[in-house]
């Protein structure tokens, strides 16, 4: 099926060429970082994780969100998702790939990467995170490829794939739970030390991921003959709405605990992020942008007329996606590090190089995603009208 990614219109190749060029630029900047060290980023001994780890965290959520299609389709027999479930699985593949690249970009000694396997340490959450991510990548490759291959031949997928599909459901939950545990188990980082962290992660993932998928599905429909149908889009919109409500609610709970208890350590990070601390207001603009976009998106999604209109629905989804990207891909990490362990404010801001490496990794992800979607769409176009029961 791979050959389907190698034939395409001029527009397809121009898009792929642009992404390839961006990847190369990003990689060139990475080589610079590889030679000099991570000092070319904005990081310091006080804020030792930043944009890279933020993007990693955010993308684990995008990857996990494929389960929001798999559960209705395979567990609740919601046939309408039949056409787009493959889009979710392929999105997961490219998201996990980006996660791994962001981890590599953030490592001080990437050549020693295999030490994680050579000296397995079950007590370390990062060891488990590596395992579940690799496993999830494998599961989605397997399931996506086998089901699509069956579709191409116009037959039902083999029976042996079912256990893997069911396994992928708890596995998706696990990747984001384990990622939350990276943060939620550290003594002394008050902003992260919250039992609701994993739940928050899952809620924001199940809002942001399907929102992205919805946008992608509509783009695919506009550009190709592949039509996911109106109803699956509306079903996705409802998932996004409920998940986003849960996410905003969870964030409000964090505010309550911090400010009603009044414990200084718990409030400091919120002060820094939303108001500024000791004259440092670097994050305030971004965090309020995120909050306003969240409220706007949620209000739009709550009104049925707005949600049913695909044009306004897309606007709401874009707003929601940007809001979550800021909140989880950036603010969440920085809030854990500022103020530092000595209660000093040592701000962080990504450098140009860091931004370009990040752009490069997103370009690689989009490149892979486009190729995979091209394959899926080509197969679907060929078998249009044939409905296969999985």
């Amino acid at each position, binding site marked *: 099926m791979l050959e389907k990614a190698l034939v395409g219109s001029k527009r397809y190749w121009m898009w792929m060429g642009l992404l390839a060029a961006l990847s190369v630029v990003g990689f060139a900047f990475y080589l610079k970082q590889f030679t000099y060290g*991570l000092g070319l980023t904005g990081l310091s001994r006080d804020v030792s994780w930043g944009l890279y780890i933020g993007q990693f965290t955010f993308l684990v959520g995008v990857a996990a969100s494929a389960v929001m299609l798999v559960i209705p389709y395979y567990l609740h027999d919601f046939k309408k998702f039949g056409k787009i479930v493959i889009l979710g699985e392929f999105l997961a593949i490219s998201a996990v790939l980006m996660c791994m690249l962001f981890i590599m970009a953030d490592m001080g000694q990437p050549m020693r990467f295999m030490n*994680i396997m050579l000296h397995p340490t079950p007590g370390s959450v990062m060891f488990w995170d590596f395992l579940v991510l690799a496993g999830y990548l494998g599961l989605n490759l397997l399931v996506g490829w086998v089901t699509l291959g069956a579709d191409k031949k116009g037959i039902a997928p083999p029976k042996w794939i079912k256990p893997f599909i069911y396994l992928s459901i708890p596995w998706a939950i696990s990747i984001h739970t384990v990622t939350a545990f990276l943060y939620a188990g550290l003594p*002394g980082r008050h902003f992260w030390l919250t039992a609701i962290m994993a739940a928050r992660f899952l809620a924001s993932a199940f809002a942001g991921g399907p929102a992205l998928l919805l946008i992608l599905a509509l783009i695919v429909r506009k550009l190709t003959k592949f039509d996911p149908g109106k109803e699956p889009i509306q079903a996705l919109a409802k998932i996004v709405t409920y998940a986003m409500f849960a996410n905003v609610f969870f964030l409000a709970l964090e505010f309550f605990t911090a400010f009603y208890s009044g414990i200084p350590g718990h409030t400091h990070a919120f002060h820094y992020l939303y108001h500024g601390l000791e004259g440092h207001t670097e994050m305030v603009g971004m965090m309020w942008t995120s909050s306003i976009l969240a409220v706007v998106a949620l209000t739009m999604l709550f009104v049925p007329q707005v949600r049913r209109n695909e044009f306004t629905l897309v606007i709401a989804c874009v707003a929601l996606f940007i809001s979550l990207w800021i909140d989880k891909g950036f603010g969440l990490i920085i809030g854990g590090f500022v103020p530092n362990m000595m209660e000093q404010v040592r701000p962080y801001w990504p450098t140009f190089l860091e931004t370009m490496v990040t752009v490069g990794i997103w370009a690689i992800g989009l490149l892979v995603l486009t190729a995979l979607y091209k394959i899926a769409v080509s197969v679907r176009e060929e078998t249009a009208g044939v409905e296969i029961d999985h």
Partner: protein
Amino acid sequence: MSMDRRQFLKITGISSILGLGASVASATHPIWMPGVDPDLVSPNAQALTAKRWGMAVDMTKFRSEADIKRVVEACHSIHNVPDFGNNPDGTKNIKDEIKWIWKAKFKQAFPEQATELNEHLEEAPFLVFCNHCDNPACVRVCPTKATFKRDDGAVMMDMHRCIGCRFCMAACPYGARSFNWRDPRPFIKKEKQNRKYPTRTKGVVEKCTFCTERLAVGQMPACVEKAPPGGLVFGDLDDPKSAIRRLVSTRYTIRRKPELGTGPNIYYVIGGR
């Protein structure tokens, strides 16, 4: 000498099987990396040993800024800790900063115990460094056992194994860890370089190690040696007869963030005599 049958059996068989459950130290090696034949190696006879190394810090013994500076400089020069100098505006360059031991204000070292009503105490200088915790968060999170706790209590770094993920820096509640954001060599002054100790490479984490390289040859940690008498007391907290134990048992001491359950082994004596 090639690897003969006897040695081969020793390495692959007995040492790994026995070593696996026998001692804490051997558990740091996975079974597929048996390491050196344990019969051939031993610690130095003159090495200082303990069940639980700890330190008591009595800042009242430090009479001047110079006393503090001397201690910090002794540690940093003996361990080839780079100095990244100052920014153009004269402030310290904290972007790439690496430090093992440094001076902090009371309100920074003990934020939850500071009181605005005692301005003198809030601003008073305290030496801070790795707490060599009983239950170290950094060791718990390390995905490669590059940082680990020795059976004498020292929390140690294996720079050869560190992958530079910086999970330990996120986990340490004391900010004791530094990362090599760039090659440190150009920032270690040639004349100050200690040629008996390695430098670090870019991309690894480092911190105070209780001077394990000095303990191994029967010397006290460098900071202890350079501190005014009684300023830094180093010894075995599990030995009831040791000076540090008597000091901690009889005087009022505080520790940094003990409520986190990390079990810090650095005690700060309050109210000098």
